[in-house]
């Protein structure tokens, strides 16, 4: 026991083989893309139904309709009230939730394996026969409007909302909040939701993913029974190209006089999920701001103590989503923090990561992937991504090898192509009287001040 040498990092043992859970494609009714993953650790099941009813396909006047319709879906079916459906689900320990997003609408359900037949029936009833009664429509609208109000007083949301508008041209849906505006929500009626669901809650382009302690043939029979008559394509598809609002660097202060900290967002238009740079760019971003030991976090947090944490992220969507650095810093450190963020972005764009950094990030990405596949819900979410982004079936089987194959030069090239230090949009939500001078001193450009409640 006394011979232990603590000065050396322990040697690694031999890594165990790891494989993504078996996922079978099963013929669904009417061409429904049905995929069943088998995991038998615990007697549980997770189901994800993805429909290509997304906010990105909606005109500005209808912004938020997809999110709102999904919220109101739990309001009841033609046969039962919302509370009756909730009682039926929860008395067997099942949960169901629906959410609208840019790409589509997802309905997630979880239950114990032996209750799947009942839960699947309720899932179908909820999605295929929604009633949208008037009081449930009103509830969903009121909740959504109240939520928008909450966001206008939350410093982080204020900064994010202001930044998004500055990244994307006005014609791009991604410039607006995914869940709509006070004006667009106020216009929505019961008929808008019914019409939306009827036209867009369709199986075409979507899919149903079932993961857990299940037999594929049994799942197939259940789906045939409950979704057998479901057919058609969503009525509206997205039709836009992503353009930046400007290629000039800008600085905006969203004045919130009560702030005791500055919420900083720095970014511009990022990349689409389909970019050939996907892996190389993910690695470059991990080095920049995607891990605890990233350049940004070690600089702003561990060296300077200006923030509790700073992250950078490319949000990959069907079309290029935002690339963004986020941090909340002490008001007095706002100028220096922005300066360092810009410095790190410039360094990454010009020189890329080092060989050593790329190795660490590759190992992180390859290792953490396996750690995030423990639960049926985690696996179901991954399989759904294959459907959402049209990725090949063996995508996750190859993931580790692919990510380990990224070279330093590839990561540096991706960073140079997708991080553009001269086009940064800088937004700070905080006290204008404290931060404007600090930001002007950076000499990046003129500082525009807007009021938080404007």
């Amino acid at each position: 026991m006394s011979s232990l040498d603590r000065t050396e990092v322990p040697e690694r043992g031999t890594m165990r083989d790891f494989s993504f859970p078996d996922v079978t494609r099963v013929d669904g009714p009417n061409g429904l893309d049905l995929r069943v993953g088998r995991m038998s650790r615990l007697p549980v099941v997770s189901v994800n139904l993805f429909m290509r009813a997304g906010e990105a396909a909606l005109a500005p006047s209808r912004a938020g309709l997809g999110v709102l319709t999904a919220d109101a879906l739990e309001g009841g079916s033609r046969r039962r009230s919302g509370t009756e459906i909730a009682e039926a689900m929860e008395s067997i320990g099942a949960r169901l939730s629906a959410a609208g997003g840019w790409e589509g609408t997802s309905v997630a359900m979880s239950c114990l394996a032996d209750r799947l037949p009942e839960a699947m029936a309720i899932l179908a009833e909820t999605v295929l026969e929604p009633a949208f009664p008037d009081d449930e429509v009103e509830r969903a609208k009121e909740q959504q409007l109240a939520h928008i109000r909450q966001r206008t007083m939350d410093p982080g949301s204020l900064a994010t909302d202001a930044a998004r508008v500055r990244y994307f041209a006005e014609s791009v849906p991604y410039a607006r909040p995914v869940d709509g505006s006070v004006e667009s929500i106020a216009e929505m009626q019961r008929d808008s939701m019914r019409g939306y669901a009827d036209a867009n809650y369709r199986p075409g382009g979507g899919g149903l993913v079932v993961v857990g302690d299940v037999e594929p043939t049994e799942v197939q029979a259940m789906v045939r029974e409950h979704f057998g008559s479901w057919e058609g394509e969503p009525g509206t598809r997205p039709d836009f190209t992503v353009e930046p609002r400007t290629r000039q660097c800008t600085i905006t202060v969203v004045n919130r006089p009560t702030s005791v900290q500055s919420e900083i967002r720095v970014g511009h238009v990022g990349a689409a999920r389909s970019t050939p740079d996907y892996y190389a760019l993910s690695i470059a971003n991990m080095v920049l701001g995607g891990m605890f030991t990233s350049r940004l976090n070690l600089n702003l947090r561990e060296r300077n103590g200006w923030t509790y944490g700073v992250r950078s992220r490319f949000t990959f969507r069907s079309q290029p989503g935002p690339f963004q650095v986020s941090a909340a810093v002490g008001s007095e450190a706002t100028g220096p923090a922005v300066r360092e963020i810009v410095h790190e972005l410039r360094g990454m764009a010009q020189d890329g990561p080092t060989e050593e950094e790329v190795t660490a990030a590759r190992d992180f990405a390859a290792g953490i992937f396996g750690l995030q596949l423990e639960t049926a819900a985690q696996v179901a979410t991954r399989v759904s991504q294959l459907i959402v982004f049209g990725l090949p079936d063996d995508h996750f089987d190859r993931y580790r090898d692919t990510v380990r194959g990224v070279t330093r030069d590839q990561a540096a090239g991706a960073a140079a192509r997708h991080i553009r230090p001269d086009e940064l949009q800088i937004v700070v939500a905080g006290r204008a009287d404290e931060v404007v001078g600090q930001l002007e001193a950076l000499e990046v450009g003129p500082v525009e001040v807007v009021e938080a409640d404007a």
Partner: protein
Amino acid sequence: MSGLSIPFERHTLDNGLKVVLAPDDTVPIVATNLWYGVGSRNEIPGRTGFAHLFEHMMFQGSQHVPKNKHFELIEKVGGSANATTWFDRTNYFEKVPSNDLELSLWLESDRMGFMLPAMTQEKLDNQRDVVKNEKRQRYDNQPYGDWEERLLKLIFPEDHPYRHTVIGSMADIDAATLDDVSDFFETFYVPNNAVLTLAGDFVPAEAIEQIKRYFGDIERGAPIPALPGNPTIDPKIGTTVRDDVSADVPLPRVIMGHRIPPYSSPDFAVAQVAESLLGKGRASRFYSRLVRERRVAKSVVVFVYPLLTGASMMLVWATGYPDTELDALEAAVSEELESLAAPNQSEIDRAITLTETDLVRSLERVAERADQLSMFDLYFDDPGRLNRELDRLRAVSLEQVSAFASEYLVPDNRAVVTFQPMEAR
């Protein structure tokens, strides 16, 4: 559904470190989890927030591990690591591929045994700034951010260890010194005040030998000192106490707290069933009646704190709409709480089923298993209680829920904090 049967074995090292081993080779990962029996309740006056600041210092390196290396080494193997501080405890955890178990043991044992030689004023000042920014980001810069500080003062008397928040006060965080770091370390970060749990893919006979190698030579510390202040407390508040605030918040909100029996009490399972019945799921009383039917609340959240010292608390947060009257919202919440004295069996069955399923699903993750086993061992000297949790919940009867509601969820045991949005918006 049958009961839980998560296999585990227990050991105690000569220095008092308790060890729980829960093997499960269905995933190629292993979770390491350490609970130390120290939290904000152990803080002395003038040093609120110190247990949490100390937790940050535990990531600043130790004798054989340079600053930043902890996260660097863990991230390099594709693992994750973090820690949390709470009223009664502080926990530290890593999740790594199973072939990297030894790395976790090396890191955790080095800071348990050899932290102080690596401490410097510069590191303390750096993490003090980080923690102050954490407090600003999570509390001071947030609408309603001081709710807990206000509520704890209403529920717990002067001198009670739960009267202050875990994050503490800025002045106290500013006042912390390097001497405080060494005193705290020597007093509380001793093997006889900790539980180490492994869950996941490992061989127990090999793991215990490794644990002995890494932790066995760390010296046992003195017995843990009694809690500061006065932990004894009346079971009920005795009246309604309140704090009505007008603040820069978007929506009216009522936060209601009740003093309830501590986590160690048999009645705590009743509180958990009541929590579920009131607030879990869309068939729950608060959602179905206040959110769906009456539309007086945008959302209602119920939360039971599992606290050990004298008493615990059950909270209700009800958020209204812009035009909701606070009085009406508070009255609606009270009505539901009081009508819980007359529950029906079907909703109790549903509440128990939902709580059971949530528990089973949470145990899909080995990190969560490890965390729960550590907790039950540290708190009750009984990790096996995890496997009896479902039985404890199922044994709760309608009469008990009714008696619990009539005894505790009543106006003479109530603390209320209300937030009224300021005008001019």
